[in-house]
């Protein structure tokens, strides 16, 4: 099974949105452009993937039309006989993404995943099951943008687990789907994970750690200033279609660093260097993980907070930072440096850190979550929770 070229993959991810198109009066004509149709055939009757009515998917995806398409590789194309499943995103994702109370549930490969994404996936699963039972053992490419990327990730690992056929996954601007065990399993079991991001797109940065991505990050554009427009497929700010089409194959793209495994210490005196962008979001996460790991707190933090949702988890992290500061003066400096950088990241450089207190650590972490969420969905604010203890 040959890997899709980024150009074909991104066109398929965009094409999936056309499943929104049809109405009873004006039925949709499935007419993919030349880039797609050179390689894949679609059938106007059979290619639509339509959710079951009355389910979560119908509610979240706001559809009575469809959530995507599947196509079959043409004999003369690069993917003869293989199946492609393209799933679309939706504006309805914003609530799910920024829901800090959302917990975990058991995902398709028996590892913990985001409960909101999994609920949506569960209601499109019956339709995929019908399809998979018919296609036999053909290799499958799963493609999606935004929520479509999260659903494609769940679909890919479910198909792999259940049908044991070759599966490759291609996402653009996908949010994070699960914690580390899910990501590791998806990465190792699938026959390829091609996760493309515009670095200025905030959506791939949420939900925040302990949610992590599966697979290497392929960076289509490297500007680090975070902007909502960078999540879009079309247009030139920078636009996933435009950036992905520049590359003949995935191997020619820049790969992101494995932030989860690097060691980062932030000195309090340097805190003013930090400001709100993708680079510092990564540095701060990396510094937080370094501190939690080296102090041995990481497993107890995860054990206490992971199941109950992001807000509770970051409350546990705030307490852990206070405890870490009390272990040694070195850790106290590291914690202070971390909080100082977060305060600058969220645009509150005037708040001084003397000692790492629970109150300050909690406020700083909440401000950080709030700032990221504000960008992901401008309307939502978690401010009312800050007074909560």
């Amino acid at each position, binding site marked *: 099974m040959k890997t899709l070229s980024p150009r074909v993959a991104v066109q398929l991810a965009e094409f999936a949105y056309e499943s929104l*198109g049809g109405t009873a009066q004006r039925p949709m004509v499935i007419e993919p*452009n*030349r880039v797609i149709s050179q390689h894949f055939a679609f059938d106007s009757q059979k290619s639509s993937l339509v959710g079951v009515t009355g389910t979560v998917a119908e509610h979240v995806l706001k559809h009575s039309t469809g959530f995507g398409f599947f196509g079959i590789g043409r004999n003369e194309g690069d993917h003869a006989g293989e199946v492609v499943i393209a799933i679309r995103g939706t504006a309805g994702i914003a609530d799910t993404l920024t829901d800090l109370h959302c917990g975990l549930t058991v995902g398709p490969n028996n590892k913990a995943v985001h409960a909101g994404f999994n609920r949506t996936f569960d209601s499109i699963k019956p339709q995929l099951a019908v399809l998979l039972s*018919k296609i036999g053992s053909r290799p499958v490419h799963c493609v999606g943008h*935004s929520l479509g990327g999260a659903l494609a990730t769940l679909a890919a690992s479910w198909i792999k687990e259940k049908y044991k056929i070759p599966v490759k996954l291609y996402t653009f601007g996908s949010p994070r789907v699960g914690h580390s065990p899910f990501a590791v399993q998806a990465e190792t079991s699938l026959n390829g994970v091609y996760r493309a991001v515009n670095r200025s797109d905030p959506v791939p940065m949420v939900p925040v750690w302990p949610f992590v991505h599966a697979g290497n990050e392929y960076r289509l554009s490297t500007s680090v200033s975070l902007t*909502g427009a960078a999540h*879009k497929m079309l247009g030139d700010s920078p636009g996933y279609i435009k950036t992905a089409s520049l590359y003949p194959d995935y191997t020619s793209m820049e790969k992101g660093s494995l932030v989860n495994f690097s060691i980062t210490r932030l000195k309090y005196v340097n805190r003013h260097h930090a400001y709100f962008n993708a680079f510092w979001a990564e540095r701060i996460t990396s510094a937080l993980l370094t501190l939690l790991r080296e102090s041995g707190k990481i497993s107890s933090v995860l054990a206490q907070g992971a199941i109950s949702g992001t807000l509770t988890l970051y409350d546990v992290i705030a307490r852990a930072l206070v405890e870490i500061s009390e272990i040694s003066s070195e850790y106290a400096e590291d914690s202070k440096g971390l909080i100082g950088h977060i305060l600058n990241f969220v645009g509150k450089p005037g708040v001084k850190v003397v000692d790492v207190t629970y109150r300050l650590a909690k406020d700083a972490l909440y401000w950080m979550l709030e700032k990221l969420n504000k960008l992901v969905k401008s309307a939502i604010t978690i401010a009312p929770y800050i007074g909560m203890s």
Partner: protein
Amino acid sequence: MFGLFKTYDVHMCSEVKGVLTLDGSPLGGIVVNRYLKFAYKLEKEDQTITNQDGSFYLPEVKIQSKIPGDMFSQESTFQLITVNYSDKSYELWRSKFPGLVELSEYKKKLSCLNGDLSSEKVNFAFQNDTDENLEFSASSICRWENDFEVYQINDDTDYFKDL
């Protein structure tokens, strides 16, 4: 952050000029329908009637919308221009127009939408002047002299017969 409150200019379709014929003779008095849908949500429809010489005209469609402020919206306009003639529908233009701003490539095509009802509908690609990696595509019964690359991918295999 304040993007949700801002209103954007959205170009949905260039002005349309063309001539309708049947086997070479002009068709007058025929209704031309234009259907536009922006971001899979916002619909616009208008009509005109062809003159005795078969010519017709539809103005540019431009609207104001808040949709582009939403980072999760997909900004393209589905464009469909059809005529009905003796109980059959013919497509003069079907395309997905990307973005918010008028493109000269689309404008050129739509300013000479000359179709003969006896012609077959074809898929074709036309040049994107600003990004050579991203060609435009449309389908139509009309024909153009320049920048009009018909493509046919119909092979005879029925890939879906067992599904």
